[in-house]
């Protein structure tokens, strides 16, 4: 077959082998201080004692996160990048994008939530079946970002509970995937109970 008219291994994207997934997920800085201590605590007191069934259920839940993209603004475009050809979220069972809240269990709030949208967000969150998880993506959704303004919700935790916060404006697709992986690990460790 003919070569591509461009060199995709060139300087636009350099490919390098990374570490194994677990190692990569633990790499980020922000999680850090005290993360390891907390894990030991969990082992001693919490998750270690849960039954095998629980472990199984958590494993299954973590591997089949069906996202509901609540995309409003710029971050939604990056979310689209994540589900399009350059990234492969299907490897983690999270590619089934559902626009109906009844069929989703992970809500990715991508973009600014303004006061006018707040009741809508709340209603859609309430329509999701339990267990439901929420990722707040980007500066606007997590805290209002630089819109300290008369019509912008200063962080969606005013309205709904949030499990994972992703900084960035917008976060890169890899950054968002990292947060999904981290949420997956949290669920599988049984840390998120909802």
């Amino acid at each position: 077959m003919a070569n591509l008219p461009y060199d995709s291994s060139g300087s636009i994207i350099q490919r390098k082998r990374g570490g194994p997934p677990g190692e990569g997920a633990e790499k980020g800085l922000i999680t850090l201080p005290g993360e390891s201590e907390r894990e030991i605590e969990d082992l001693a007191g919490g998750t270690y004692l849960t039954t095998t069934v629980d472990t199984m259920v958590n494993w299954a839940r973590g591997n089949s996160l069906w996202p509901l993209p609540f995309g409003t603004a710029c971050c939604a475009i990056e979310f689209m990048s994540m589900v399009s050809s350059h990234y492969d979220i299907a490897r983690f069972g999270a590619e089934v994008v559902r626009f109906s809240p009844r069929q989703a269990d992970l809500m990715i709030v991508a973009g600014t939530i303004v006061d006018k949208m707040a009741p809508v967000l709340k209603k859609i969150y309430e329509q999701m079946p339990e267990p439901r998880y929420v990722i707040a993506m980007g500066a606007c959704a997590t805290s209002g970002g630089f819109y300290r303004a008369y019509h912008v919700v200063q962080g969606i935790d005013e309205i709904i509970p949030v499990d994972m916060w992703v900084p960035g404006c917008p976060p890169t697709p890899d950054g968002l995937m990292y947060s999904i992986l981290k949420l997956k690990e949290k669920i599988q460790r049984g840390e998120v109970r909802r």
Partner: protein
Amino acid sequence: MHLTRVRPGVVKVERTPLTVLDRLYLPAVIGGMLVTIRHLLHNLFNLKQLPTISYPEVKRVYSERFRGRHILTSREDGTTRCVACYMCSTACPAECITIQAGEDERTREKFPVRYEIDLLRCVFCGYCVDACPEDAIYMTRDYEMAIDTRARSVVGLRDLVVPPNFPVGPMGWRPYYGAIDKHGTAGGTGVGQQLRSAPFEDDAPPNPDVFRGGDAQ
């Protein structure tokens, strides 16, 4: 889809009427299938050229201007290079930087007692780096940030400060506006900088474990 020229500088995209063949659906459908099959075969035989990045095993390496998480650089003696001049917090459109200045008793030099960045507010515009007159704040290529409680989103000196002579290579957005020889290390210019003999206890001690962004090798 063909063009006719209306007048200089303006072309009209003509709508060609459907031919009988087109009306049969099949030619267009088969033509479309051929295009997709061509892509499929091409990808099958050129698996190495697939544009898909298998994150997290394969990581995308962004350019050396990438605007990721911030760091604060140190002088050779281990003190922070920041002099708490508030330029970065003034230039920040999100007002996400909080600085509390202290004074060195001996050298009468200002230094940050508290330097906090609210990563959730931050919009990663790079204005703080542009505003810094001391070569003290850089942005890294680290994009893997995910925070599980909001309280952890505010990072302080302990998370931000990197050890002296930290390699510039893996970092992202850095002070520009004219090239400058960095001698391969962050904050390496050191021209006219007062040196403090020892780090003070208010400065976070340089902790090699803190920065793990690294070269993403």
